[in-house]
Every structure is written in C-alpha cells, then in structure tokens.
C-alpha cells in the first residue's frame, strides 16, 4: 500500500552523477552555473543544496549568498521563510504526518498524537540520537487516501496508528544510518 515518491527538488537537469560526499559541491556549483548565478535562482539553488546536504548549514548558505551575489541576510530570510528548508540536520529517518483538511477530518490529529506518544517526540523535532524526525505537512494532495503519512519518502495511505507503529519500529530497528545521508522529503 505504498509507493516511493520522486524527490521534491527540481529535476529539470540531469545531474553530473549520483551525489557523493565528494562531488556535492561540484553538483551545487553546476546548478548555480546552469542558472547563470542569477539571484532569482536562489530558491532553486537552495532546493538543490538541501537535497545534496540534507539541510542548509550556515556555511552552505554563505556559499550560496556569495556565489549568487546576494546579501547573506536575504538568503537567510528566504531559507527561513519556506517550510521546506531546514537549517538543522534532519533525522536519518523522517515520518511526516499530513495535516491537510481531508486528513484532519479523518483523524490525522489523533494519529499524530499517537506517534508523538510512541516516539516521545514533539511534531517538528528530531530525536536526540538523530535517528528520527517527526514532521507534519499542510496537505500532500493525497486527500483521496486520507489520512496520509510519509515514511522516508514512502506515502502510506489510509494510515492507522497500529500499522504506523509497526513500520516505525521496523525502520528504527535497522542498523543506524551513517551520519551523511541525503535528505529527501
């Protein structure tokens, strides 16, 4: 009952290669170059940066600001305006509960409460060991299969607390992921 979604970032160009720790910077540079370092490409570039690095560190933001010739404060202002961008590392695993109206009407709030109780995390936070982030979304457009939950990019429709609990346990029982991971939402 689940299918993985493609990554949220713009996919209009072919990447140089699969991102690795070593060539992430190259890929990011290539993205900026493709946009001719135009300031209006900021959001696209931030999408790419977050896709590559998992989150937008101050160093990363400073690089983007420098290369796009933008004041750092503008880059920071944009990065913090949009919910998609994260300025802190996300958990190795993410669990996103959709709180759109359709999901809400079908009990998403109770589902979230159950997950909070289960994980001991407040929505929007990451566990101390960095293994899990519990997040919410404002409608994934998957209203037809409400309530919807996305587990590591996998959409689960008609979600119920018991199933989710089992899946979460299975996920977290896997050996911890390496520190570097590629964030995807």
């Amino acid at each position: 009952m689940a299918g993985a979604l493609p990554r949220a970032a713009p996919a209009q160009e072919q990447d140089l290669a699969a991102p690795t720790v070593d060539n992430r910077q190259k890929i990011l540079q290539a993205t900026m170059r493709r946009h001719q370092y135009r300031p209006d490409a900021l959001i696209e570039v931030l999408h790419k940066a977050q896709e590559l690095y998992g989150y937008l560190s101050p160093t990363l933001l400073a690089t983007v600001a420098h290369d796009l010739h933008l004041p750092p404060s503008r880059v920071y202002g944009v990065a913090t305006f949009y919910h998609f961008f994260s300025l802190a590392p996300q958990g190795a695993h993410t669990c996103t509960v959709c709180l759109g109206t359709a999901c809400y009407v079908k009990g998403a709030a109770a589902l979230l409460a159950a997950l909070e109780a289960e994980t001991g995390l407040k929505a929007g936070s990451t566990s101390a060991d960095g293994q899990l982030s519990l997040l919410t979304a404002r409608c994934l457009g998957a209203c037809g299969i409400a309530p919807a939950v996305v587990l590591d990019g996998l959409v689960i429709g008609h979600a119920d607390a018991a199933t989710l609990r089992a899946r979460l346990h299975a996920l977290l029982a896997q050996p911890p992921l390496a520190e570097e991971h590629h964030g995807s939402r």
Partner: protein
Amino acid sequence: MDLAELNAIAAHERASRKPIRIACCTSLGCYASGAVELQQQLTAGVAATGRAENVEVVGVGCMGFCGHGPLVRIEPEDLLFEHVRPEQAPAIIAALDGGPCDVERGDPRHPFFARQLPIVRRNGGVIDPERIEAYIAAGGYATLYRVLHDVSPAEVIDQITRSGLRGRGGAGYPTGLKWATVAKSPGERKFVVCNGDEGDPGAFMDRSILESDPHLVLEGMAIAAYAVGAHEGYLYVRGEYPLAIQRLTRAISQARRHGLSGSQIFETAFDFKVEVRVGAGAFVCGEETALIASIEGRRGQPRPRPPYPAERGLWGCPTLINNVETFANIVPIIERGADWYASIGTARSKGTKVFALTGKIRNTGLIEVPMGITLREIIEDLGGGTPDGTPVKAVQTGGPSGGCIPASLFDTPVDYESLAAAGSIMGSGGMVVMDAGTNMVEIARFYMAFCMDESCGKCVPCRVGTVQMHHLLDKLVNGQATSEDLVQLEALCQIVREMSLCGLGQSAPNPVLSTLRYFRDEYAALLNAPSAAAPQPTD
C-alpha cells in the same frame, strides 16, 4: 516541427495501439498505494501469458476515484477494478478472457463517473502522461498550431472573453479581461505564469491535472503567451507535488525536443520558453504578488495591489497569472469554440469545475462537473453520502479562504455568486464533507491554525490577528471562553478582513464567519460562565 510532423506522430501513435489496453492509474493516490508495482506485475503478466501482441499495459493519469485506488481499467470492455494489489495482476489478466476474477469491481456507469463532464480532465485516466506522443495522438498541440497560424492574438482573447471563462484559482476574475489587460499593458517583456501552488488543504485538482495531462497546461500557456505577447513563462508548482513536478519537467523537455516550446514554435516567429519553479512550502505563494516574489527568488510576501501584476508583475513587467485549471481550459475552448463553452454552466459561471471531494464521503476523489450543479447532486449522487450512511452535516468549500455550507443549503447551485452568497467561495475546488461527528468550532480553529502558520508576517492584522483569533477559538474549544470572547472574535474577524494586505488575511476569518453563521449554536454551547474564564492558578 510542422503540422505534417505533428500528424505523423499522432498517426504513428494510434497505429501502434493494441486492441486491448490495460490502463493503470499512476497518479499520486494510486501511485502511493502501489500502482507502480502493479503496473510492472501487469506488464510482466501480459508478457508471461504471451499476450503482448494484443494487450498493452499503460500507465495513465488520474481516473478520479482516488479513494478506491489503485484503479485499473480494461478497454475496450470498460471493466473497472478497484483497490487492486500487485499480486492480483494475474487475476486481472485472467479477466481479459472473462475468467473468474475476485478483484473488487467498480462500476464505470456509477453516477460518480456518469454525472461528470470532463473537459480539462478529458485525458485523465486515458493517456500516458509521460509520453508527448500520447497527448499528440489525442489531438494535442493541434490547437496551438492553428492559433499560431490562423488566429490573431486579439481573436484568441476575444474567444476566451466570449467563452465566459473565469479564473479557477478562486476569485473568478474573468480570464479574457485579464488577458486583454496584459496584452494592452505596455512593455517589451511580458510573462505568463501558471500558478500551480495549490495550497488549499484538501484540494488536489491541479496536482491531478499536472500529473495526468501536463501538456494540456503547457499548450494553454503557450496560447496565452501568444495572445498577450509574452515569450517567457513560469510554471510554479508546490514542492509537495514531486510527481507532478517530475512529469511536468519531462513534458517540457519533450515539448522542447519537438519544437513545441522554445524558439520559433511550429516554425513561426513565436518564441515561448517555459521554466518550472518549485515552491518550497508556503501557502501564501498562491497569492499572485507573493508568487511573483517567490519566482524572483525572494520571500513570498505579497505587496499591495494595485498595481496589479497585469501591469507590473515579474521584474516589474506585465505578467499574466492564471492557475493550472484555467490554462487547462484554454485548448478545449479554442478547439471547440467560445459558444460551445459558454453553453455549459450558468449565466455567469461558464464551463465546468473540477472538485476534490474528500472528508466523510463514500466516493472520495476528483470530479469535473458543469457549473450550476447543486451541492446536493455532488455530495449525494456523485459522492454517495457519508461512508456510514449518516446524514452529511456540512461541506467546506474554498479551503482556508472559504466557508462551511450546511446541509440545509445543499440545493445551492455551484457557481461563483451562489457560493459567495452562501458565505463561502468557489475557491480552487476543495470540498471537504463533514458529518454529524464533526465539531464545527474545531474546524474553524483548524483553518485558523492554518492561516496563522501560513501568514507571511508582513502586515499586522493578519500576522497578529490570526494568532488572536486562534487563541479565542482555542479558548472556545476548551470551554474556557466567555460571551465577551465570542464578541471579540467576531469583531476581530471584521478587522482582519478589512485591514489585511492580501487575500490570505482578508479571507482568513471566512471559516469562522461561515461557521458562526450556520452553527452559532455550537459556539454558544461551548461558552463558559464568565468567572470560569479567569486564569487558573498554577499547580
């Protein structure tokens, strides 16, 4: 690319079709429910049973019946299967021979399908959205060709004007008038922007259109660009829609490869380059001035209008902004004529509207119906009422900017003016059905929480007023509010509505006002005695 090539592609595509077609919905709802694996299993099954000569398995766009997905349809027999699991692929293949099949069957003649009038969704569930050839075979891009060669920009605008098409994003501004304004606005450089930032929670019409028929939107945009004199376009899609973005991006590169986008389209002097811009999670970017700011790479904060984007939009240039569904209507209108289009719908609301029918309703999904249909017809006939057969209490239309309409008003025809008179709006097309178990004050609080979180923070009434309204609704829901609090809530609704800078703030009070209008007793029941409202000591 010229007409001959276009026709050749269409002919080849049609010729290579096989007699039997297994269409597997791959739009988000079904996709998320395992449609991809199902499609693979079906393909493998067809090959394994040696039917590849006669049978093709095609991934198609949204069939609309999302709540029952994954959906599979077999043509030409028109057999519909619901809730299909990958392991059921052999059973479906067996059904091709009329063999026994225990897969859940759907009824394609069900009112959910029969009462619809697909215009923008005509290719949904029919063609493979990932192949431009499929779109061309369905007549795609022929209209653009005709327009570029035979129709003047003014005539295009005239057709759109006469069709009576109004913006499908919510406000219902006459599309032709908007186009004419942009066309008239002086400027070397103009832009066409497609607003795909479908932010209303509970709405997924645009996602579905983009996932199911991306070229229809691109072709509509190109026609619009031609009409208003623009050569650059942006498609702004919310980041929450990765599948739509992927298909759209693919569609654009296909169109570019075929000379249907970019320079000298159809070997004319008309250039139109279109780019996708991915939103990053901000509802307010659905507001056109905020959308512009976002495309420019800035914080998505609206600015006061006037000046309207039609005069001063992207980088100060005249900019046409329509939403996905509006652009999807263009090709059918030009193709079949303004008069045909104007014959559908009501006196002031023409054509069809796509709705996302969700919530406590049996038939969840996407429908396209002619304007003027009543809410009752949608909810009872198409939607089949609540899953457990209990009475429907209300329907919420228009998302956070809309309102709740009670069952007593379900005979209201669905058109811009009637919905507004009922205290809601057409909005982008979300319809969330609520049953007796739904607490309307809680619903109002839900929407207020949404507006509060999504307020950009620029103007004071929206930034702070939504927080205060949410606080009061919270007090109400928790039984701590007094009648004075209710008075204050209503007063705040008025202030935020009158004083806010953009549509988000101006309409944020709507869910409260409409629930107050029809369900005041639910508010009253939550009121507490004044003394109990005093702050509680800490423990």
